[in-house]
C-alpha cells in the first residue's frame, strides 16, 4: 500500500476519448515528492521542448501534493502545469479550495490531459467511475455558473468542480481555471484547458487516504494547528498589518486600504496617488466592502479565512480573495471600491487573471491616449473609466476587434500593434505582467527573486525574510527571539545588522552572498510546499509560519513511511529546482531573460545586479548563462537530463 499518495494517476486522452488509471513509480515520489516536483518530471519526460502550448501533444496536468488530503492543515493545493502560451516556458499555476483533496479521496494523485477533444466536454470523476461528458450546453457559461450547473445536473452537491469561463474557451492568454473560492489564474493555463476542449473537471471521492505512522503524524499535524492558533493570537509586531499574520494577505478582512492605494501604482502601473486616502473614502470603502461581504471563508482543512463570499445586490454571488478587489479599481482609475466588486464578478465568471487583465486594459487605455491605438479600435466604447473597462473586458474575452489583440497579454499585443507600443508593456518579466509596484532603492534579495523566479510571479517566490529592516536593535532582538523557522542561525545575524542607512543597508546589504542564501531559503520552502500541496500561506509566504524546514521532514516521514531528514529534503528541493530550470532552459530560457521591469526600482546598480546573478547561478551549480551544469545534474540524480542537454548542444562540449 502507498501512504499519503494514492499511487495512481488518471490519464485522459481527449483526442481518442480514452481514460486509463495508471500506477505510478514510487521512485519518482522518492526523487521529487509529488505535486509540482513530479509534474515537472512528467513534462520533461513526455512533452518535447518544441511543442507549442496549443498543441495536442502538450499536457495539462492537475496534481495534488504528496500531503494533500491528509490531516496536515492547509494541504489542499492543486498544482496545474503545462507549457504557458504567455511565457512559452513551463506554466505552473496553483489553487487552493477543495478540489485536490477530493481527487485524492477519489483515488488519484493527478489527472493528466493530453490531445484535444473535438467537441466541448467536461470530465466527471466519481471514485473509479470516470466519464467524458458532453458540455455543449455549457458553452459560453460563466466559470462560477458552470460549477453550479454541473453539480446540479450530476445531483452531487458535494462534487468539487474546476471550470473555465468564456476566456478559457476563447484561449485568452489571461484565462484562469476557477474553483469555488480559488483559481489557478496565472500564465494562461485556462487557455490551454479551453484549447483541449475541456470546460470543467468535476470530482467526487469517498475512499480513504492512508498514512504510514498514524499516531506520530496526527501529533505533528496537531502541533502545526496549535502553532497557527498561537500565531493568530500573536501577530508579529513592528511590521505592517498585512504582514503580521498568516495566510495570504487578509484583503477580505481588512478595510483600511491606505497603504495599497497610496503605495501601489494606478493605471498602467505608473501613477502613484500619495494623497488618495481620506476620511470620506475610508467610510465609503468600508461600507461597500462590509455590505457585499457575506462570510469570510477558507480552503479545505485550514483555519484561516483568506477568502470571502461576495454578493453585490443585483449580481450573482461569487468568491474572492487577496488583492483583486483593488486591481481593477486602481488600474481603471476609479475612486469607488463598489466598481471593483462589480467588475470582479463579471471577470470571475469570464474566468480571467485578476492581476494581468486589469493591466492589459490599462495598457490599452494608455495606447489610446498616446495615439497608438485609434478611435476606430475603440469604436462603441463608453468614455467613462468604468464603462471603458467593462467594454474592454467584454471585447477581450470574446476576442472581438482590438480585444483579439489584447487577449494575448501586453507583451504579445505590443509586438502586434507595433508603433512603439512595446514601451507601454513596461511591467513584465518573461512576458508576464507583474504587480503594479514601483519602488525607490534596489533590494538585492527582491532583485534576485524577481529576476530568476521560474514562475515570473513575485508572490510565488518571496516569503519569510523581512521585506525591510527593523528600526531599532530592540525590535530586531524581539523579532529573532522566537524565530524557530530559520534553516541556519546566520540569518538572525543578518536581521540584527540590517539598517535603513549606511554601510549595512540596501542595496549592498544584505551582501551578495547573504542575498543568495536568503533567496535559496525562500525558494526552497516554495518548492517544498508546491511538491507537498501545502498552502504557501501557512509556510513559505508569511513571516514565522507553522511549517518549516525543521518539521517538514518529520511530517513527510510519518505520512509516507519514507526516510526523510533535512539534508534529504534539501536535496529534493535542489533536484526539483534544477529540473524546472532545465525544462525552461530546453525551451530557450537564458540569463538575458532574467530581467525585472526597468522601472521597478528608481535606483539601479547594473554592476551589483550582475554580481548578484553570477553568485546566484554559481550557488545553484549552474553556468553563467543560467544553465544547470552537467556535474550538478548528475549529483542530483538527473544524469539523463544532463545527457539530453548535452545532446542538444545546450550544455556545450559535453561540459559547462
Amino acid at each position: 500500500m502507498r501512504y499519503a499518495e494514492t499511487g495512481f494517476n488518471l490519464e485522459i486522452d481527449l483526442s481518442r476519448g480514452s481514460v486509463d488509471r495508471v500506477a505510478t513509480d514510487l521512485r519518482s515520489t522518492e526523487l521529487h515528492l509529488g505535486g509540482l516536483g513530479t509534474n515537472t518530471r512528467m513534462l520533461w519526460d513526455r512533452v518535447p521542448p518544441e511543442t507549442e502550448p496549443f498543441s495536442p501533444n502538450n499536457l495539462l496536468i492537475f496534481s495534488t501534493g504528496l500531503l494533500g488530503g491528509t490531516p496536515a492543515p492547509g494541504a489542499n493545493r492543486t498544482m496545474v502545469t503545462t507549457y504557458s502560451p504567455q511565457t512559452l516556458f513551463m506554466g505552473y499555476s496553483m489553487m487552493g479550495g477543495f478540489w485536490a483533496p477530493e481527487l485524492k479521496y477519489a483515488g488519484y494523485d493527478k489527472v493528466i490531459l493530453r490531445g484535444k477533444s473535438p467537441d466541448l466536454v467536461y470530465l466527471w470523476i466519481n471514485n473509479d467511475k470516470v466519464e467524458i461528458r458532453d458540455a455543449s450546453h455549457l458553452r459560453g457559461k460563466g466559470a462560477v455558473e458552470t460549477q453550479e450547473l454541473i453539480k446540479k445536473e450530476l445531483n452531487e452537491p458535494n462534487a468539487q468542480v474546476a471550470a473555465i469561463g468564456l476566456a478559457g474557451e476563447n484561449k485568452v492568454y489571461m484565462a484562469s481555471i476557477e474553483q469555488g473560492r480559488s483559481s489557478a489564474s496565472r500564465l494562461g493555463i485556462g487557455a490551454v484547458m479551453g484549447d483541449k476542449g475541456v470546460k470543467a473537471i468535476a470530482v467526487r471521492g469517498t475512499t480513504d487516504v492512508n498514512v504510514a505512522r498514524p499516531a506520530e503524524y496526527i501529533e505533528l499535524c496537531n502541533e502545526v494547528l496549535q502553532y497557527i492558533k498561537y500565531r493568530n493570537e500573536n501577530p508579529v509586531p513592528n511590521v505592517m498589518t498585512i504582514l503580521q499574520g498568516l495566510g495570504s494577505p487578509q484583503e477580505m478582512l481588512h478595510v483600511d486600504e491606505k497603504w495599497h492605494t497610496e503605495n501601489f501604482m494606478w493605471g498602467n502601473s505608473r501613477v502613484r496617488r500619495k494623497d488618495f486616502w481620506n476620511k470620506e473614502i475610508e467610510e465609503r470603502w468600508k461600507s461597500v466592502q462590509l455590505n457585499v461581504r457575506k462570510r469570510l471563508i477558507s480552503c479545505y482543512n485550514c483555519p484561516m479565512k483568506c477568502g470571502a463570499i461576495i454578493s453585490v445586490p443585483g449580481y450573482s454571488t461569487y468568491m474572492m480573495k487577496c488583492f483583486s478587489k483593488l486591481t481593477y479599481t486602481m488600474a481603471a482609475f476609479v475612486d469607488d471600491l463598489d466598481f471593483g466588486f462589480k467588475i470582479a464578478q463579471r471577470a470571475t465568471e469570464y474566468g480571467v487573471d485578476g492581476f494581468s487583465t486589469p493591466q492589459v486594459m490599462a495598457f490599452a487605455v494608455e495606447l489610446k491616449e498616446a495615439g497608438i491605438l485609434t478611435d476606430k479600435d475603440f469604436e462603441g466604447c463608453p468614455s467613462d473609466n468604468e464603462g471603458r473597462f467593462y467594454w474592454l473586458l467584454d471585447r477581450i474575452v470574446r476576442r472581438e476587434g482590438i480585444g483579439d489583440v489584447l487577449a494575448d497579454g501586453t507583451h504579445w499585443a505590443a509586438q502586434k500593434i507595433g508603433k512603439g507600443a512595446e514601451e507601454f508593456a513596461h511591467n513584465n518579466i518573461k512576458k508576464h505582467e507583474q504587480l503594479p509596484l514601483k519602488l525607490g532603492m534596489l533590494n538585492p534579495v527582491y532583485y534576485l527573486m524577481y529576476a530568476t523566479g521560474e514562475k515570473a510571479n513575485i508572490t510565488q517566490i518571496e516569503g519569510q525574510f523581512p521585506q525591510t529592516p527593523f528600526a531599532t536593535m530592540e525590535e530586531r532582538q524581539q523579532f529573532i527571539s522566537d524565530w524557530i523557522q530559520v534553516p541556519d542561525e546566520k540569518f538572525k545575524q543578518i536581521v540584527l545588522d540590517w539598517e535603513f542607512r549606511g554601510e549595512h543597508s540596501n542595496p549592498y546589504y544584505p551582501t551578495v552572498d547573504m542575498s543568495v542564501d536568503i533567496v535559496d531559503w525562500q525558494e526552497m520552502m516554495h518548492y517544498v510546499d508546491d511538491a507537498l500541496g501545502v498552502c504557501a500561506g501557512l509556510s513559505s509566504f508569511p513571516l514565522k509560519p507553522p511549517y518549516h524546514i525543521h518539521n517538514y521532514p518529520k511530517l513527510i516521514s510519518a505520512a509516507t513511511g519514507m526516510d526523510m531528514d533535512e539534508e534529504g529534503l534539501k536535496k529534493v528541493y535542489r533536484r526539483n529546482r534544477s529540473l524546472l530550470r532545465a525544462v525552461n532552459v530546453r525551451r530557450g530560457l537564458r540569463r538575458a531573460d532574467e530581467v525585472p521591469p526597468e522601472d521597478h526600482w528608481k535606483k539601479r546598480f547594473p554592476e551589483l545586479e550582475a554580481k548578484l546573478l553570477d553568485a546566484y547561478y554559481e550557488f545553484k551549480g549552474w553556468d553563467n548563462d543560467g544553465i544547470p551544469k552537467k556535474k550538478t545534474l548528475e549529483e542530483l540524480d538527473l544524469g539523463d537530463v544532463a545527457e539530453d542537454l548535452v545532446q542538444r548542444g545546450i550544455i556545450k562540449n559535453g561540459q559547462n
Partner: protein
Amino acid sequence: MAKTKKKVKTITIDLDKCNGCRACEMICSTFHATPKYSSNNPARSRIRMIRDPMRDVYVPVYAGEYTGAECMGRDKYVIDGKEYDECGFCRASCPSRDVFKEPDSKLPLKCDMCEDDPPQEKPLCVQWCINDALIYEEKEEEVDEEEVKMEDVEIGLTSMIDKYGLEKVMDTVSRMSASKKG
C-alpha cells in the same frame, strides 16, 4: 421511577463563526479509523458540513439516530431571510440522503462524542475548530433512568434487519458462523 444523574455532553454550533473548512469532518473520520488515525475520509465522518457557498449556507450537523424511513413531509427554515435546505439541520442517518453512512457498507454512522481511553478532553471536531464555531459543554441533568445505549454493531444490525428482515439476517449470521468454524 428512580432519578439518576447523567452527564450531558453538548456542542454549541455557532454558524456565524464557521469558515467552512471541513477540518471537523477530516479529524472525525481519522479518529474513527481503524487503527486510529491511520486514514481519513470525510465521507465516513459523523459530522458533516451541509454547505452551499453560493447561498452562504454553512451548517455543521452531527450524525444522530439511524432511521429506517424518511419523514412524511419536509420542512424548510428561513432564518434572517436565508433559506436552509430541507433536512438541513437533521441529524438522522436516513434513506433520503447520502450522509452519515459508511461509503462501502452503507451502514449508519452516529456521533459518539469521541469516546476514547483515556477520555479526550473534548470531541476531536471541537479541538480542531480553532475558530470556535464548535463549543463543547458538559452539564449534569437528572434523568429517570440510565438509557440503554446501542452499540455500533447493534445499530448496524438494526438497519440490516429493517432492510432484509430478521429471519434473513439470522440465517446469514448462522451460515457465516458455521462456515468460519468449519
